[in-house]
């Protein structure tokens, strides 16, 4: 099982992150200083690392504005092993002053992005049966209490009826 994260390259505007920051301010929360958004995809099935890299580079990443990171995940454990960066310095990823909110569809909820993704993987010539999930990752900068993160996650970023959040 591989997780692919699509990051905005340095020097390009992270418009979705800025829009979320504006919405957070609209909730009256003032201690979030910056938000960066990235897309997440999980690809599961009989698929090799090389094929996953093709999916990441040729399909999921806009070569002009984005980079990708591929992580190998086991089914149950959320701990990650960073396997591959495309032109991303590891130092760029590690900043003690941010918190992360991930938003995923709950099991059983139709994930239409993943359905498009499975179709697009076949278009790439990878004719294997795979499962896919699409999610969202928000990096929130600033000294933010856990309760505030929970508020942002559940009031703003996720529809808790159909989506679940991971806050860390």
């Amino acid at each position, binding site marked *: 099982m591989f997780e692919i994260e699509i990051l905005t390259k340095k020097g*390009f*505007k992270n*418009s*979705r992150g*800025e*829009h979320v920051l*504006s919405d957070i301010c609209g909730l009256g929360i003032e201690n979030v200083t910056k938000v960066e958004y990235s*897309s997440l995809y999980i690809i599961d099935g009989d698929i090799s690392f090389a094929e996953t890299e093709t999916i990441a580079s*040729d*399909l*999921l990443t*806009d*070569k*002009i*504005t984005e980079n990708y990171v591929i992580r190998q995940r086991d089914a149950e454990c959320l701990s990650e092993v960073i396997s591959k960066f495309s032109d991303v310095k590891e130092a760029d990823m590690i900043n003690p002053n941010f918190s992360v909110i991930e938003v995923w569809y709950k099991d059983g909820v139709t994930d*239409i*992005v993943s359905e*498009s*993704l499975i*179709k*697009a993987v076949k*278009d*790439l*010539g990878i004719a294997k049966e795979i499962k896919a999930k*699409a999610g969202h990752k928000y990096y929130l900068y600033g000294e933010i209490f856990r309760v505030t993160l929970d508020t942002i996650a559940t009031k703003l970023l996720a529809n808790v009826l159909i989506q679940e959040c991971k806050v860390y």
Partner: protein
Amino acid sequence: MKKIKVLILRTAGTNCDYETQSAFELCGAVVERVHINTLVEEKDKIFEYDILTFPGGFTYGDDVASGKILSNEIKNKLGYEVKKYALSGRPIIGICNGFQVLVKMGLLPDPELFKQISTLSYNDSGRFECCWVYLKTEKKIGSESSCIWTKNLPDVISLPVAHGEGKFISESKDFFEDLNKNNQIVFRYSSKDGGEPEYPLVSNGSTERIAGICNKKGNIFGLMPHPERYVFALQHPAKEGFNSKYGWGKVIFQNAVDFAGQ
């Protein structure tokens, strides 16, 4: 007189195909809307048409990124034919989502290279923007543009936009120098008098306020605004147009039909 045949390529999520068909028919063309699966089964069918159109919409729900899945699909399944068609000099237009497809496929700005070197990214405003904008037609500045689609347009026209990912950017400064040098910039967002626009007349943050470009030869044209939504004066908010009947979008389609008929 030869009837000009137009192919409008559609797939899941295409939603401007009927309006585009209507615009071309108004200009005297015969139009067929063809699903990509049909074209993939019979690839050489593409050469039966005089004009190729990638219409607006939200192909595959804009999943992953606008136009990305369709551009990959075309490149992987029809890449050879589409490139050959483009290099033959026949007119090709990509409107909104179609422009995103052309750019991400790499057919614009250079079909010979056929590689993505620019992109249409998220609007600076961070949201979907839907309004009428003014466009400065760059053919009137410096050397005449070679774009066959935009002859006979006034200095400034008005067209509607509706997109969330219309910010035209590239990694390289040379890229924009080349576009300028080769007169490939066709439309820039402008104010009513052709000057610097303010929000919401320019909402996406496009580099150099670019709204539409063509290839060097001028037969391939991509733009974010929707000319098919302004073929009659009646469609304009102030009912403006020319000959008190038509909208400026019609001129764009008429130019291509006339060119193909020569």
